[in-house]
């Protein structure tokens, strides 16, 4: 099976949509419009990626692009996760829109992760978890 077909299969799996809907249903304080906007936001992220995947005829290019998309989503998710949790720690509460955005995005990440080579995922996660450590160590060594 071609990578584009695997991606389409995984990312448009009805189970993913069900999980998104179940998560959004748990957002008790939201209006239907807020839920719909967030659902549309995460779907657009997926659909934009799949649109390029459909156009890309080079398998290796697509593999690289899928990894780049994973990096972009993962970095975005990490930023949202940190933002919502800094608010939790400092103020004791956080913006529910961030909470549900983070949760929906993490499911999309999980679906994409299942398509990528595990060694590549591990390498990406290691880099994204400590992107500036090398610089700090260099600075310490130079001091």
């Amino acid at each position, binding site marked *: 099976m071609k990578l584009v077909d695997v991606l389409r299969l995984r990312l448009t799996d009805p189970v993913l949509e069900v999980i998104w809907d179940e998560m959004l249903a748990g957002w008790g304080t939201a209006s239907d419009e807020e839920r719909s906007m967030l659902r549309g936001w995460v779907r657009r992220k997926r659909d934009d990626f799949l649109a390029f995947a459909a156009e890309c005829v080079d398998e290796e290019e697509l593999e690289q692009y899928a990894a780049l998309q994973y990096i972009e989503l993962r970095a975005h998710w990490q930023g949202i*996760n940190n933002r*919502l*949790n800094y608010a939790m*720690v400092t103020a004791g509460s956080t913006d529910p829109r961030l*909470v549900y955005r983070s949760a929906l995005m*993490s499911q999309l990440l*999980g679906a994409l992760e299942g398509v990528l080579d595990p060694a590549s995922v591990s390498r990406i*996660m290691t880099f994204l978890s400590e992107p500036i450590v090398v610089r700090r160590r260099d600075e310490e060594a130079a001091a």
Partner: protein
Amino acid sequence: MSFFDPQILSQLPAASREFANAQPFGIVKVTDDGTVQMYNTWEAEMAGVAPRDAEGKNFFTQVAPCTNNRLVFGKFKDGVARGSLDAEFNYTFTYRMKPTNVVLRLVRDPKSKSNWVLVGKKN
């Protein structure tokens, strides 16, 4: 007021899996680098991760990557480096699970040099 009986802290170093599984909150025992040694059933059910899938992996980077930041993993690493760790704070888990508000307690027992992540649901 904490989400568990403070006396539990003194029992943690000798805690068996049966003891941990009997508690109404999450108990995760980790090595100094964060590798999970014990993951109790409450935590497994809350996170949707089976103990066999969590044990042997790094809690902060692989099992609960939403804790891989200075707020949690940084605090943990600083505490391990100091040889002293006892911190409790509010947190929200969202990674591939229903968003859940929790209280996290990071503890190190200096005598046994064992580390614990305790997780309680926040009402």
